């Protein structure tokens, strides 16, 4: 993907969204990758026994999907300064999650081009479950 430059970004701009399938298999791969083996994320009977409608997506996976959307946007020459999200709503597995980001502020700090963003994850019906914010550094055109 072509490098994005700070100069070309405008406030209000959206970054490329991710549309991610949250299959039970994916959650098992995440359990292995994160070391979070809590059964509400892969055992249907266990989840139902905890009054959940279905197995649910790990909050941390949603946080890291937002990290990926930022990482792919800033490219090789950019850098994530920080990002943070709140897990406000549960996402049942076996449906897609839409990961999005929108530029809220463009400025300079420490001699670098910085961008603040609003970020989040949404369910297919539009319900927002994972609001957050991020700051990234983007390179300037020479």
């Amino acid at each position, binding site marked *: 993907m072509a490098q994005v430059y700070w100069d070309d970004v405008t406030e209000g701009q959206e970054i490329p969204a991710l549309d991610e399938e949250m299959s039970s298999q994916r959650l098992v791969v995440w359990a292995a990758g994160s070391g979070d083996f809590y059964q509400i994320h892969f055992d249907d009977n266990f989840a139902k026994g905890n009054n959940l409608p279905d197995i649910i997506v790990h909050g941390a996976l949603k946080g*890291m999907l937002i990290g990926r959307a930022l990482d792919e946007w800033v490219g090789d020459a950019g850098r994530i300064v920080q990002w*943070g999200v709140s897990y406000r709503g549960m996402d049942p597995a076996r449906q897609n999650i839409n990961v999005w980001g929108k530029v809220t502020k463009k400025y300079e700090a420490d001699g670098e081009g910085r961008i603040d963003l609003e970020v989040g994850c949404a369910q297919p019906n539009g319900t927002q479950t994972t609001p957050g914010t991020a700051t990234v550094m983007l390179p300037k055109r020479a």
Partner: protein
Amino acid sequence: MVTELPDLTDQMKAAVGSTGPTVTYEVTTLGIRTFARAVGYRNPIYYDEAEAKAKGHPALVSPPGYYGMPVFNPLQQQARGPRASFDTPFKRNLNGGTEVEPLAPVYAGDVLEAVTTLANLTLTKGRMGQMLIQTSETVYTRKSDGKVVAKTRGTGISY
């Protein structure tokens, strides 16, 4: 239904600001690839060492937010963080949120030492009754060069 606490207990108040034990995390090629696969990365620097080196990295690159896994050993007691340093009537826990501040690149082969500080405890009332909101900060330091590579902040909700 747990009995409501009128205020944080003295033990809880004393725990705020306390620091847990140092936990060793290993960042391995297998760990990086499994994390990158779960998150859906397609960038070869997270999978292919030759591609990572071609981009100027010394080894497979760890994706943002991945600081390895605590070394597991069933023969040793698991290290307990500062959140475990007080008694609590709340039985269930939810992950309330994550903040990540990457400070330096992390690579396969890195060994990190993580220290977690309990930053704050607050009692609130929510849909599920009384809740204890716990915020903690973890600092990850690379063992080989003493560099702080990341800080993360986590919010835990007990109810």
